């Protein structure tokens, strides 16, 4: 375990919601533990109702766990000083109806920024997110995509050490998505930590160093993208100079690709050599994140939250 404090750490956190008169209690998080190291882009995935937003809201101090504890930037969840160093963009961003530039300044000022520094940062964010043309327009009249950009600007205005983004690109057009990706990657280069929850799996796969998949309030899988997607159980052998039919392989660009279980890897290579062929490469089978996601969701019996007194949903 690294000795420095993690950027974000959940330790055995459970969260139960009660219905009216506590008739129907729902467990959103169930002994949820996760550690996000400083300086990484961490992807946070899970089906709807898995508890992702609950976990994020607990980290931000907007909710309190039923049990367990956690820390953010070395301080307990909800710590005011720690929150000043965090940028947060919630799902379905909702902001006050004010001019975009004033709005960003307002949120920056709430984080203790003021004067020239605040104005400069606001200007920079407006430029960064292509908001200069609408800086003096009321954000209440913005489209969802534009509002999302203002939401990102208010999250970034305080130059945070930790950026927590819940569906940051959900309403953005492709150009906006690319821009956000660039911002995230640049933030990592500057040593910041980015914790991003998204349903856009391809995006997560592209930018994240590590990711966790949450199912029914628990971490079902956590690791680097490579660890999670590359199976060590099956390998693809790329060979040349052999008959594809003989090895039940597929011919592709003049090469034969043969998928074999790990146990048969060595014997298949020997067979290729005996047949006079040449082995070009051996790779572990790489699944897509979508394959893994769907597989885990099925294994864990769906995605809905678990009713405490009513058994599993």
């Amino acid at each position, binding site marked *: 375990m690294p000795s420095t404090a993690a950027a974000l750490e959940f330790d055995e956190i459970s969260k139960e919601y009660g219905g009216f008169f506590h008739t129907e209690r729902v467990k959103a998080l169930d002994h949820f533990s996760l550690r996000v190291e400083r300086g990484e882009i961490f992807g946070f995935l899970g089906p709807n109702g898995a508890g992702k937003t609950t976990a994020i809201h607990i980290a931000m101090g*907007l909710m309190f766990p039923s049990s367990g504890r956690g820390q953010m930037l070395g301080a307990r969840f909800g710590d005011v000083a720690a929150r000043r160093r965090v940028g947060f963009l919630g799902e379905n961003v909702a902001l006050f109806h004010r001019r975009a530039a004033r709005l960003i300044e307002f949120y920056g000022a709430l984080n203790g920024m003021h004067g020239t520094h605040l104005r400069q940062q606001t200007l920079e964010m407006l430029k960064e997110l292509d908001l200069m043309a609408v800086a003096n327009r009321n954000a209440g009249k913005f489209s969802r995509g534009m509002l999302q950009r203002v939401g990102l600007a208010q999250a970034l205005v305080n130059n945070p050490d930790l950026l927590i983004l819940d569906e940051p690109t959900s309403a953005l057009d492709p150009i906006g998505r690319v821009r956000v990706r660039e911002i995230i990657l640049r933030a990592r280069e500057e040593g910041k930590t980015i914790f991003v929850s998204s349903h856009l799996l391809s995006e997560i796969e592209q930018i994240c160093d590590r990711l966790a998949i949450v199912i029914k309030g628990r971490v079902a899988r956590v690791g680097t993208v490579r660890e999670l997607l590359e199976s060590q159980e099956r390998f693809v052998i790329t060979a040349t100079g052999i008959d594809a039919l003989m090895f039940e392989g597929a011919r592709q660009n003049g090469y034969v690709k043969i998928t074999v279980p790990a146990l048969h890897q060595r014997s298949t290579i020997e067979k290729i050599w005996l047949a006079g062929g040449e082995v070009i490469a051996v790779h572990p089978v790489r699944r897509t994140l979508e394959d893994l996601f769907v597989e885990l969701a099925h294994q864990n019996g769906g995605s809905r939250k678990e009713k405490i007194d009513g058994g599993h949903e």
Partner: protein
Amino acid sequence: MRVVLLLAQNYVRMQWVILLIMTLYLLGISGVFSVHQQRQEVLFFLRSQPLYVLFIALMLAVPAIEADRKSRRLLAVLSKGIHRWQYLAGILCGCGMMTAFFSFIVWAMAYALCRRGGNPTEGLGLLAAALCASGIAAASAGLLYSTFLHPLLATAAAAGTLLVPVAFTTERMANSAANVFFPVARMVDALVHYHFGLVEGLWTIIITAVICAVAFLAIASAIFDRRDVTISPE
């Protein structure tokens, strides 16, 4: 303090429709009363209109948290480096600003009406100050109950708490020690029985109203500090 003022200013900005309507109403009703300058009519203005100010102060504070919560605007605010008490103080301060503005209009209109009708104007300023302080106390009670109750229930609970002595008094409220702790009820009582000139006990109302507002805010903060402010959309 800067954060509280920022939030207060933002709150007032968000309530511009109410601010505009109430201002137009007060100016309009003053215009209507200015046509008639009989003593009884001016007295009716002075007895009735400040009650609306108290009511508006309560009604401004009660739905504030719920509105921010339901619109999810609360997330962006409370995720910043601010304490929850600062958020509540911002709302209360905003309500206070609006109440002060309405009280000022009531005072200005009452002063003008009294002058035109040849009625005494002394004590009107203190009455407006007491009205403002009572309005803030009413808003703080509304805010307190709205931290854990639905706005409808919070309105009923706050009104009940503030006006308990009025419910049990058939004549004038006695100046007893127990009633001192109900500045809003005393203010209502003073307004209903107002008859020009100086009103006794207004300074007591102002002081106890401020104490009540601070106490209610402290209790509201303690409760709000322990509550989940969002429900997961999942």
